[in-house]
């Protein structure tokens, strides 16, 4: 990842927040320009937001979770169940879901972060599957395989319209992007970067690696749950398999990796890159929309190992620092 001060001569005058503002501004224009493709826009942005949330763990700590689907589900189900049973406003229901997800992640990470690399990934698949089975079987709580639907009693009417939904999702993306920026310049971000590079070396400098990673996981989980709640509002009806399948976890993770893990915009870019091809498969062929994911991840691994944004950043860095060791 690049250093806090924008380095390249070309971008030296451009403040990162200006870039963020520009990106968000452009995205805000989407409903005006492409008003008849709102579903496409919402789902692309939503997936991008989920990938961004995943990256707070995956990109920043190097722990690859293939179980984030469970957190999406926690967000969706918590908000819905609280709205239905306690008539709790979806706003508070979402917050509750975020808190629950963060707590689950804290416990989950505490147990499994000690596992190296792939073992952690395997354990994340298992934990998420168990959560899915619980949601599927405990029908008294979750209505099991029949799923839940949101009625007009649960949400104010305007939230069912596409344009407001789009802006809510945009706000979600803005929040996670904003947090990504904050992280880059904050103590936690520095600590995470150090831990990712050399855990023991970081410990010698007073960094508690376990705690840093847990905080990152909890935040990643909270944001993922936020996305989950929005997803539920968008779909209005869902069942366990809508959110909780391993396929969803894989989808989110691959978006982040293809787009460029550890970069601020990478996961979002990943969603944009995959949006049209996978939409094509979904609408024309009705299924197999993950085919493109499979093809692209192989392509990326072979030719663009840092992902789209990662490769771009690396390329820009080399252009501006041609005489450094390893660049010639």
């Amino acid at each position, binding site marked *: *990842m690049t*250093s*806090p*001060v924008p*380095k390249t001569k070309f971008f030296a005058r451009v403040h990162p927040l200006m870039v963020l503002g520009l990106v968000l501004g452009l995205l805000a224009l989407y409903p005006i320009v492409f008003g008849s493709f709102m579903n496409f826009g919402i789902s692309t942005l939503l997936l991008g937001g989920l990938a961004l949330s995943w990256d707070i763990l995956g990109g920043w700590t190097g722990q690859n979770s293939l179980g984030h689907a469970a957190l999406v589900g926690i967000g969706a189900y918590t908000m819905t169940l609280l709205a239905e049973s306690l008539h709790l406003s979806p706003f508070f229901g979402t917050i509750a879901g975020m808190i629950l997800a963060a707590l689950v992640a804290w416990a989950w990470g505490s147990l499994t972060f000690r596992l190296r690399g792939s073992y952690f990934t395997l354990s994340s698949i298992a934990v998420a599957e168990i959560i899915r089975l619980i949601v599927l079987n405990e029908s008294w709580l979750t209505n099991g395989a029949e799923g839940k639907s949101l009625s007009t009693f649960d949400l104010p009417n305007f939230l069912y319209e596409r344009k407001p939904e789009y802006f809510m999702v945009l706000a979600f993306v803005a929040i996670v992007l904003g947090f990504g920026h904050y992280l880059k*310049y*904050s*103590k936690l971000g*520095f*600590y995470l*970067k*150090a831990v990712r*590079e*050399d855990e*023991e*070396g*970081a*410990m*010698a*400098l*007073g*960094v*508690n*690696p376990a705690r840093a990673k847990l905080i990152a996981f909890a935040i990643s989980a909270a944001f993922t749950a936020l996305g989950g709640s929005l997803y539920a509002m968008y779909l209005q009806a869902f069942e366990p398999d809508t959110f909780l399948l391993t396929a969803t976890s894989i989808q989110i993770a691959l978006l982040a990796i293809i787009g460029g893990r550890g970069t601020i915009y990478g996961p979002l870019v990943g969603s944009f890159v995959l949006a049209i091809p996978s939409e094509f498969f979904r609408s024309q062929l009705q299924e197999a929309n993950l085919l493109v994911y499979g093809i692209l991840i192989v392509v990326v691994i072979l030719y663009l190992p840092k992902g789209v944004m990662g490769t771009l950043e690396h390329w820009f860095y080399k252009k501006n620092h041609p005489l*450094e*060791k*390893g660049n010639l």
Partner: protein
Amino acid sequence: MTSTAPILEAESVVVKFGGVTAVNGVSLKLRPGEIVGLIGPNGAGKTTFFNALTGFVPKSSGTVTLSGRNISNTPAFELPRLGMARTFQVERPFEDMTVLENVMISSFLHHSQTREAKRAALEVLERVGLADRKNQKCSELNLARRRRLEVGKALALSPKVLFLDEVIAGLNPPAQAEMIEFIRQLSKTGIGIVMVEHIMKVIMTLSDHVICMAFGEKIAEGTPIEITSNQAVIDAYLGGTDDD
């Protein structure tokens, strides 16, 4: 020059790996502003003892106290907050981060705000003479600068006790002289220093007190002059001192 109450005390530290006893009951006392040199032939257990004191290797028995507080079981990452810092023999800069960012990791210990941490880190960079390289990536530094960065990172933790692991060996003579003087100045500020070094000349010039280890045991202890004339020490080095 030094006050009398020890800031660091290690009592009969034993470290065993499986069936091997790498450190067999070694003790050490360090006073503020004092420099203790740790010498011994290869395999003597100096680095293991060093690692045991700094929390990177578990002790089988023995106690370590820092300012009176028992740190025998304190995890390594908590020790900087209590006033202990160390360098690594093979430097461990965060290669992908700049010099400034590396030191900032340390200064974040006492300064939670990024701006403050940056300011404090810049001060340290000035002290170790790396201010001009602050935005350079560590992978591009030469050995002397990597060493200074390693020391700088430890310094930025504002330690009361500093563990230096072979910071002089491998440097060319002018760089060595600089480093020696730097360490001397550090001890004058009241920091207690434990150094492992296999260049005898350096140890003798800098140390107030020397501990010699061989085969996991402390075989001699005393002032530099006493140590150089100690028969056990001479024997341990098999007939001569290392003179780089």
